[in-house]
């Protein structure tokens, strides 16, 4: 390892390409933290948004008119307003209304931190797209299949969990992948409310070491790599989940 650090130090002196995140232990630790935070944020939001999508799609098929209207209103509101404004609205506006609590050092702080708000707003944003995606998948399940399940004595929830959802999931996987990739890219917005994810950390590092081009390029490639990895995994999953003779 030491040789690698030395080589990057030499690279800095010889060419001026200053990659502090490799040879400087403090910057390296910060960047690794940022990378882990980005992945953590992505995973939590991925999970939550899928849950929101599944529940929302189920509610949207409800026989109650007002439940359907409420879900539709949520979808339209979150799909047609900028995610950054949503995040500001959640963090600054709703956050200011939240009660404050004393932490272990006796300092008053809001119940929900910027982490919580980032996770909430990103999940709700991606979830609104997921609801529509799951709904289109559910609509693609043949009516006869649902009727067959009903005739076997399944109730609405059981039909949904055991018959409709597994089939719908396969139909909507491509669209879902797209949305999840988008979500990973949207996690950069958490920068705006000071969540220490990769972009935020990179910003701190280039403010300290004045190596903007290197850090920007690193960031671009890191995100392209991360997204590429996700796309690859999801494609594998898509292929593994394929039912012969069902869907395209």
């Amino acid at each position: 390892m030491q040789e690698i650090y030395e080589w990057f130090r030499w690279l800095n002196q010889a060419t001026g390409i200053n990659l502090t995140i490799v040879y400087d232990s403090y910057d390296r630790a910060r960047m690794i933290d940022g990378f882990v935070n980005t992945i953590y944020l992505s995973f939590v939001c991925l999970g939550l948004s899928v849950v929101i999508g599944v529940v929302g799609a189920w509610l949207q098929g409800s026989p109650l008119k007002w439940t359907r209207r409420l879900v539709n209103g949520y979808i339209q509101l979150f799909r047609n307003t900028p995610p950054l404004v949503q995040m500001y609205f959640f963090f600054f506006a709703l956050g200011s209304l939240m009660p404050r609590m004393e932490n272990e050092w006796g300092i008053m702080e809001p119940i929900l931190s910027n982490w919580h708000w980032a996770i909430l707003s990103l999940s709700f944003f991606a979830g609104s797209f997921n609801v529509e995606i799951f709904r289109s998948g559910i609509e693609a399940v043949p009516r006869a299949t649902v009727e067959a399940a009903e005739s076997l004595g399944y109730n609405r929830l059981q039909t949904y969990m055991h018959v409709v959802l597994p089939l719908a999931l396969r139909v909507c996987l491509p669209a879902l992948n797209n949305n999840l990739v988008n979500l990973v890219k949207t996690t950069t917005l958490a920068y705006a409310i000071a969540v220490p994810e990769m972009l935020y950390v990179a910003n701190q590092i280039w403010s300290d070491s004045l190596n903007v081009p290197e850090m920007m390029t690193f960031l671009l490639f890191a995100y392209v790599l991360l997204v590429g990895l996700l796309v690859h995994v999801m494609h594998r999953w898509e292929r593994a989940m394929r039912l012969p003779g069902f869907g395209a």
Partner: protein
Amino acid sequence: MRGPSGERLYGTTDLPVLLPAAERLRRRDRLERASGGPMLRLQAWHGLALAALVLLWAGVVWAQGEAAGTEQQESVIAAIWRWLPVLLGGFVFNIAISFMSMGIGTATGTLLGIMQVSELRGLRGSSWVVTQFFRNAPWLVLLFYCMFLLPFEFTVLGLTIPFPDWIKAVIGLALPVMANVSEIVRGAIQSIPSGQWEAAHSLAFNRRQILWQIILPQCVKRMLPPWMNLYAILTMATVLASVVGVGEVMTLTQRVLSAENRPEFLVPFYGFVMLLFFVYCYPIARTTQKLELRYAVKQ
């Protein structure tokens, strides 16, 4: 459709193709027959217009109340009303940025998309790499990239051309748009049945003629819904420019809020910005849906 005594009613149908509309029309007709006159047909935008009218009216009333010289603190609606020109100006700037980015992105993206179906292997491969790269990079990171790495002025032949922040933002937003348009164009070209190509070949068109005179005109219709969708996404992404310090609606809102310094204004002001974007983007989304339905190929 049968009337109460079983006779056929004029202007109704039993045809299955019209069932969704027929159901709605039948219900409306029944209501109109019962009331003996035309019904008021309310749509979503009527409610929106009404809400806007009420807000406007309330704002005027409050502003007048202020003018009457009461010593109370200014109300939220009056404050929004007072700052409305500033906020709307910022929003117009957002729209201007989105127009310019969309223009640049569409022009370059179309070229890139056509390059993706080129017969030259190198050209095809490299344009694919460029498309995937810019499609997979987050918008905010691309915006930062352009902000920090483009110079703030160019010197050409001793002439200094300033390069303000908002132009850099336009370029930064145009890059992902370019990549997305490229994918839309490629998808549309590949969705045209190969019979079209073969028929054109047999009529002695060359490749360029086929592309420009036969394939692309057919693609326009298919590309329109995803292109509009992309435009809505871009409009919502213009807010990102506030993070890098361009004076658009979000930046202005934050300045207004810090100038007012009243915590109870946070919710309504941020809510107002959301409303602005919603009012602009929702009709686009609805139109996109309608176009998609109209152009959908029956399978």
